[in-house]
């Protein structure tokens, strides 16, 4: 039934300049599921995530998120998703709270000072609320980016390598947030190398290789070999 499916990608192919990064990949994620999308560097996992996020238009293929077409109804999709990308996407010359305030206004929401403060507290940046982001470490930036997501409660959470170079407390924050989303009926897709960290939050692993999605594995059926393979990948 359409309602039960959050993400439905069929035959997604994407070409960058002369190289096909995705070669006809399929992906299906049900509502309420948390899935790890895993693969080597250059396998196409980030590209697939960006296609789902409507940031990239596929060269071929059809995609639907919550039943909305990723090309024609992208705006409807964007209202419901939250993305934590490789780059934090923050403005260096604005303070932490100003970045969040800007985010609220861009999302068409009213500025809510207490909500901003609460979120800053949740991600452990209360002390830095009036500091300019320029001085932030990578970890702090990611926390702030996470905070930006917390303001909006997305139905679909897309995370791109969220654990890379992140301290344990921060990783914990991410997984907690991801779990909360699925508990509330939302859906999560995590692109990662790091199954050891992702397993806290996901119930299924989808492997992507060479632009194609391979057979997925779920929960208990993930063998130690798969685990080792995933974790052993060079970042």
């Amino acid at each position: 039934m359409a309602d039960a499916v959050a993400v439905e990608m069929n035959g997604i192919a994407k070409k960058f300049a002369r190289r096909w990064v995705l070669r006809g990949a399929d992906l299906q994620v049900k509502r309420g599921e948390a899935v790890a999308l895993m693969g080597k560097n250059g396998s196409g996992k980030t590209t697939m995530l960006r296609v789902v996020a409507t940031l990239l238009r596929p060269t071929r293929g059809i995609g639907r998120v919550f039943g909305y077409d990723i090309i024609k109804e992208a705006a409807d999709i964007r209202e419901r998703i939250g993305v934590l990308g490789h780059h934090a996407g923050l403005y260096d010359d604005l303070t932490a709270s100003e970045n969040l305030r800007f985010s609220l206004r861009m999302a068409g929401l009213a500025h809510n000072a207490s909500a901003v403060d609460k979120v800053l507290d949740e991600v452990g940046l209360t002390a830095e609320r009036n500091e300019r982001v320029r001085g932030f470490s990578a970890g702090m930036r990611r926390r702030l980016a996470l905070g930006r997501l917390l303001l909006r409660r997305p139905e679909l959470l897309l995370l791109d390598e969220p654990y890379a170079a992140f301290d344990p407390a921060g990783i914990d924050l991410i997984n907690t947030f991801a779990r909360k989303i699925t508990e509330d009926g939302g859906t999560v897709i995590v692109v990662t190398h790091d199954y050891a960290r992702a397993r806290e939050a996901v119930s299924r692993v989808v492997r992507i290789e060479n632009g194609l999605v391979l057979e997925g594995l779920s929960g208990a059926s993930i063998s130690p070999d798969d685990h080792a393979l995933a974790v052993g990948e060079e970042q």
Partner: protein
Amino acid sequence: MSFSTTRSPSATWPKWLTTFGWITAILLVSGQIYAIVTSPPDAAMGDLQKIMYIHVPSAWVAMMSFIVVLAYCLLYLWKHQPKHDLMAASAAEVGTVFTALAIAQGSIWGRPTWGVWWTWDARLTSTAVMLLIYAGYLTLRSFTDDEERRARWSAAVGILGAINVPIVWYSVKWWRTIHQLQSDMSSISPEYRRGWIINALTFTVLVVYLIVARYHVSLLQRAGEQHAEEQALAVRSVHV
């Protein structure tokens, strides 16, 4: 990247195009001979006047090409078919060449007539601006590697450029009316007109041929690339 010699069925050099090309060449030459032979030397310019039979048609088809560019850019934004972008690019290339030719011919005509290689005549100036607008279009294309982005960006730039052509034309014309008017080529007596029109028509045929031919070259290039890559789009993933 090696060019595949096995062409995919969707792109072959159409036989009719070669025939069309020959017909175009014959028409072009005939039109020129007719015009040159049947027109008497101009009272003021002498035989120099005959450059009009390539200059005016060149300018006319350059203009026409840019209308084609506009049409295909709009079509691309509407339908998102790569072939529309290829047509627009072909027309822009051909149009740019003929614009440059028209300027060069105008300059060549101008030297003996006005004693200078360049004059800030309204037509010449507007044409030079047009040339730069389309040179910008082509430069942007050459800097953009991704096909889809290139097509989208070209379409936007092409449309804005085309919108500007009449504006440039009128503003430069008004600008030049403030200053001295040079004797310009548009004062043509009717006895030359027939040669003009005939050559305008043969040039139109020429440009249609060139645009279509260039388009088919693009198609072949693309087919060659895609053929090699089709093989890479192998087994579809297993649905879980």
